[in-house]
């Protein structure tokens, strides 16, 4: 029987079937579900790490002990882990090592569109690109086998579209398995597990040879095992493609010859040359960077069309591939009648903080200080503080950057107060070293930790501050206030996230604090955690509402307009959607005429 699995679920299944017994990850859209799924299989140890570098180092240590391991992260997470990643390629691995990375073409939930395959080239190890869930499952197994055979790390690279699409796979056979643990540490293996300059110099030529060996394997075994395959049809054009792009190609151009490369780096050059010789001209269809195209061009294989018609920017879609195929002369233009928007103006619908969100009162307050302060934001749900109605984030770069940016702004002589805003999970991810640096250099900044007791944006994952493990068991809880005090922060205050005035007054004190950073911990659990307390919902008294609009400044989706008009202003009065309201009361605290109270 076949079942529908997402690409992420299929990767987890394939890795488990291939004998992976230890895995570590930091959550990040679109990679998160790989670890959530993997953790549910029997006989494995799976963990959330504090950040991606820690996850990678965990996996390296386990692998150096002889285990089959997996580390998973989103594309920008690989940047965090890159230091170790470069070197573990040099050392090689005695167990088997798969790095799962999920790229995000079109940056649907990310800061950029970087193509992780560049890391495979940079670190000189193979990269596999599955194109549906069955591929994802199979390639996870091939990745482990390749790693085992060539003692190389292997990248299994997904994209948002693969990770979050579901397609059919053969239903897995349930099997019990016991966790085995590592054998006695073997000091006789040939792998140099301690990288020193002399080791690096000796290893570099061996790494170059390893890449050539992998490419040879891809030319032979890679075809036998179905990692790469050729579909020979009409020989006027041959299409080389990989990953999700293959699906668009096979659907839009069913009569064309296709070389599907499951390994996009290094490519099996001899087989590609054979394929090129068998067709009149070669076209490359791949998403984001021209990784395959460059390898072909470097090898002197002529490419008729590639990135000239299939754009580098943005996700490939059926429509984009169709347009490229038309431009390359592979398809006739098909006229699409009426394919235009309706003659109706459709209002923009941006994402918003959820009803009851503990970040709301902080952003409502901080927007009052636009003249006096700048806000350095961070990565999480609170990135939405940059959106209307708050528009209260002045800088936003990467995970953990808020504290360092506020510090730099302040120490460079910034005229405004500098406020860093960071979440609890992000604080543990990469907020501690910049806080140490701010204390050390006496940066006068206000560090606001929005502590909602969860990694919220990625779908509620646990972290060191929650003290709950990936398996939902009690672990060690680390107190953020205690961490800050132990680093030498002398102003550390905690405040109830839903108390608008209290948040405001503590924020003022923190901004006025001198001689080093001040920390405010805004405590309030995410509405999707069991700690969040729903209260009796709010209600607007229509006789009191004067349509001033103050309540809309808290940006709550539960606050809507009623059909009742306030005659003085001619505007529609406020109402509260009883299905959405959680009773957090932030709106009632900002209403100047006390029109909002608890519903009876």
């Amino acid at each position: 029987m076949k079942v529908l699995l997402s690409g992420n679920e299929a990767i987890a299944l394939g890795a488990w079937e291939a004998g992976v017994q230890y895995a570590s990850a930091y959550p990040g859209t679109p990679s998160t579900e790989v670890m959530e799924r993997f953790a549910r299989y029997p006989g494995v140890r799976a963990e959330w790490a504090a950040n991606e570098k820690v996850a990678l180092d965990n996996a390296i240590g386990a692998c150096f002990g002889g285990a089959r391991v997996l580390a998973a992260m989103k594309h920008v997470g690989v940047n965090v882990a890159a230091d170790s990643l470069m070197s573990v390629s040099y050392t090689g691995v005695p167990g088997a090592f798969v790095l799962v990375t999920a790229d995000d073409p079109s940056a649907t939930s990310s800061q950029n569109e970087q193509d992780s395959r560049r890391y495979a080239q940079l670190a000189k190890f193979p990269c596999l690109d599955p194109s549906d869930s069955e591929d994802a499952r199979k390639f996870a197994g091939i990745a482990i086998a390749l790693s085992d055979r060539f003692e190389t790390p292997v990248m299994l690279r997904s994209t948002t579209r693969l990770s979050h699409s579901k397609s059919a796979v053969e239903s897995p056979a349930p099997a019990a398995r016991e966790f085995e643990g590592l054998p006695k540490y073997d000091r006789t293996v040939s792998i140099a597990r301690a990288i020193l300059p002399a080791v690096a110099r000796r290893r570099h030529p061996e790494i170059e040879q390893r890449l050539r060996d992998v490419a040879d394997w891809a030319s032979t075994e890679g075809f036998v095992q179905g990692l790469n395959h050729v579909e020979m049809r009409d020989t006027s054009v041959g299409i080389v493609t990989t990953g999700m792009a293959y699906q668009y190609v096979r659907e839009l151009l069913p009569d064309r010859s296709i070389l599907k490369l499951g390994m996009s780096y290094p490519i099996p050059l001899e087989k590609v040359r054979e394929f090129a010789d068998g067709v009149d001209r070669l076209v490359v269809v791949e998403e984001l960077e021209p990784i395959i195209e460059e390898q072909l061009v470097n090898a002197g294989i002529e490419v008729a069309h590639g990135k000239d018609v299939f754009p580098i920017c943005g996700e490939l879609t059926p429509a984009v591939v169709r347009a490229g195929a038309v431009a390359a002369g592979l398809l006739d233009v098909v006229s699409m009648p009426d394919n235009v928007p309706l003659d109706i103006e459709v209002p923009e619908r941006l994402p918003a903080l959820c009803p009851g969100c503990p970040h709301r009162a902080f952003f409502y307050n901080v927007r009052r200080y636009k003249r006096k302060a700048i806000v350095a934001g961070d990565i999480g749900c609170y990135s939405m503080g940059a959106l209307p109605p708050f528009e209260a984030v002045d800088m936003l770069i990467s995970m953990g950057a808020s504290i360092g940016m506020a510090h730099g702004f302040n120490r460079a002589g910034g005229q405004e107060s500098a406020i860093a805003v960071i979440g609890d999970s992000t604080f543990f991810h990469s907020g501690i070293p910049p806080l140490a640096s701010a204390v050390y250099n006496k940066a006068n900044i206000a560090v606001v930790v929005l502590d909602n007791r969860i990694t919220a944006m990625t779908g509620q994952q646990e972290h060191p501050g929650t003290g709950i493990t990936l398996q939902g068991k009690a672990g060690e809880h680390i107190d953020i206030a205690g961490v800050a005090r132990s680093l030498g922060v002398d102003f550390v205050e905690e405040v109830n996230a839903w108390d608008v005035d209290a948040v405001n007054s503590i924020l003022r004190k923190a901004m006025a604090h001198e001689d080093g950073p001040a920390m405010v911990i805004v405590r309030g659990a995410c509405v999707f955690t069991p700690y969040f307390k729903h209260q009796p919902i709010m209600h607007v008294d229509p006789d009191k509402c004067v349509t001033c609009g103050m309540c809309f400044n808290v940006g709550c989706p539960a606050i809507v307009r009623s059909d009742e008009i306030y005659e003085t202003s001619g505007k529609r009065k406020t109402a509260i959607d009883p299905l959405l309201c959680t009773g957090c009361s932030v709106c009632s605290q900002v209403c100047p005429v006390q029109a909002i109270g608890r519903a009876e």
Partner: protein
Amino acid sequence: MTEIERVNILVVGVGGQGIITASDIAAQVGLDLGLDAKKSEVHGFAQRGGVVESHIRWAPSVGSPTCEKGYVDVLVAFELVEAARWADWLKPDCIVLVNHQRLDPMSVNLGKATYPDEDELLAALRARAARVVVVDALPLAEQAGNPRTMNTIMLAALSSVLDTDPEVWRKAILRRVPQRYADVNEVAFALGREVAAS
């Protein structure tokens, strides 16, 4: 009942309306009908209060997990203005199934945009599509006993406009929803079938 061989379904609405679950079920129904099926959506930043789109495709062999713009056979919109937002994805002879619910986006609440006139919106949709079915899913879901069964009402209506075996849908829904909500979902499914048939 007609034998369906291939169909492109686009389910759209606002985060939190139960669209992902509904799409999972609709994709499973494709497999249960003996076809290949794929589904795709984007999670993450747009999750709450933002626009949600989910693609479901049934065919003997499905390539792309997303529909192509201009080739959508059935649009299932959980909210009125969201139906209009995706109109340029529709095939000329498509069916639009729209939930009669209005959720004002923040841009409207803040006075930066206006919500279109409902009659004009539906008239424009009717001019575009071969058939428009308006479903009052929220009151029906409340009648069934739980407002969260709105997505089951919409699935029931979808099963009806696609002219497929309702039993396959009913079973797929019951396999997916928590056991304690089985009864309300049974009622919701029956109500949705009735409405779409009338």
